[in-house]
């Protein structure tokens, strides 16, 4: 009905993240790019599990008249997204610690200048 717009937004987020990684020179910008891709993939997972007019899969004080399988959104993508979010913050922390160390060693965050290895 709305032309799959959330899916298009997901692809756009992934491409913006890739743009940041490929065309930006700053290391922290690269990390931000990876965070954006992460968010895009998370949004994609949740969007896949959405059913129109459905409620969250929680039985505590459920609105009356909810059809049991059809009236609820998918629980599995939500569980997967939880995992994915925690993975994202773990990777981010590790990358930023490495960046702090790189800055101590090279004194710069420019991706072209740290290329000590050829």
């Amino acid at each position: 009905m709305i032309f799959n717009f959330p899916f298009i937004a997901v692809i756009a987020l992934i491409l913006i993240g890739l743009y940041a990684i490929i065309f930006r020179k700053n290391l922290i910008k690269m990390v931000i790019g990876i965070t954006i891709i992460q968010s895009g993939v998370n949004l994609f997972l949740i969007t896949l599990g959405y059913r129109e007019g459905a409620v969250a899969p929680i039985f505590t004080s459920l609105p009356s008249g909810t059809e049991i399988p059809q009236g609820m959104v998918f629980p599995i993508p939500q569980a997967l997204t939880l995992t994915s979010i925690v993975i994202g913050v773990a990777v981010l922390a590790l990358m930023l610690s490495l960046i702090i160390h790189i800055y101590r060693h090279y004194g710069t965050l420019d991706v072209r200048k740290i290329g000590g290895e050829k």
Partner: protein
Amino acid sequence: MNFVDFLLQHSPALIVAIPLLGAFLTPLVSRINNKVRNIFVIIILLITTSIVLLLALDVFAGNIHTYIFGAKDLTLPVVRILFEVDAMSAFMAIIGSILLLVSVIYSWSFIEENSGLDKYYTLVLLLAAGMFGMMLTGDMFNFFVFLEITSIASCALIAFWTNKGKAVEAAFKYIVISSLAALFVLFAIALLYGQYNALNIAVLGSVIQFSYLDKIALVLLVAALAMKAGIVPMHMWLPDAYGRAPASVTIILVGATQASLYGVFRVCFTLYGNTINLSPTSIGWIIVLLGVITMLIGVSMALIQSDFKRLIAFSAVAEIGFIFLGIGTGLTLFANNQMFGLIGSTAMSGGIFHIINDSLDVGLLFLVAGAVYYATKETSLDKMGGLARNMKYTTIFFIIGLLAISGIPPMNGFASKLLIYESTFQLNPILAIVAILSSIMLLAVFVKVFHSVFLGPAQPKFKDVKEVPKTMLFAMGIIASIIIIFGLFPDLVINNIVEPAVNALINYSEYIRQVIPTFTGGF
């Protein structure tokens, strides 16, 4: 039910759970004593290895093990996580356990002088759990989770020597590349999930249709996992990471790379096995071409390196090209039953045999490089020379590794390379010629190393260099003896270990039927 049966039944879960438990206990154990901690880690890995061998013995006899987490019986649709161990998984798990055990024995003296060793051993055990999980799992998302565990643990271990800027830089490159690859894998998994509402590999393999979205997912999975496996031109992180990590870590990284390689094959053969007829051999040819490029570029770059470990890393890239060539040849002919029987299965047994040979050879060479670094604190080839006088055993191990990696009989590399040459020659002679050429160039590369490091007149600055400690020699000796045994009795290995793995990859319908008994398809 006796103990062994119990162990066998629960072995897929225990193989992952024991290293995990060990990793969680290591910070507590290391409060006691350093020696206790080392012994604890070795014991944990020994237990894991013995369970892997127990499981592998049963799997090679023809049983596929499935293990369901949280329920006794399998229900359809599959909602729980499955571990599904066929001969290919068991084969990979054997490689991983050998490499881990050797690495831990080697680290005893190699890494002794550094600080932060409790964290080091924790991460090694976590890496072990991640690798085994990747190899044994039968669930796509679970595969992604273990992929991430493997990459995060490897990244932290690559940066172990944080006082060296280049090590930190290599770790950063590694984590960017691997988290990106993992994200694309997750995206592909989500694409498949959105279409078929399933996450299990067997279930997905039974319903997959090769629609447009499936093609996108296939490309993303193959490209991302190939990048993690170090296929040219996405291999550039690999020499950086291998070259800068401590040698005891590098040998585990070899195993982690092979786990990604296993992911490529699992995706191509099992997940997309039922639809491979629909794509006119294109994905097989892509893999063959990638393999050829990988061999050539890897070996050419190795020729002009002047850093010891970096050189070995580039030759490791070239070796992965051989594996890709062998298995890609099989995949090319997968749809063609008659040709496959003639050539394809030989090529695939060559490729799969080469996985274990490659990890052993490259592992041994990395350990030798680490030993040389330990003794001389030097990695540049230009500054070394005449070390054979001081380090006799290391030199012998290097010669064994040299002969093995360049495919000289009677070492193990020869047998698998012979299989690859002969089968690819029948597919297309140019492939075999390129393969032989790369093999010869590998020999040239390592003769150069042999000359510049071990031969030549005694250098005055290395007068006081001593042989490395016994534990390191012992670790190298384990690998060297396996190499010689495999080289002398290749028939034994191929019949008992490699053939079941090849059959497991080919008969994807068996793998699927373990979960969906009504599946009819495949050969």
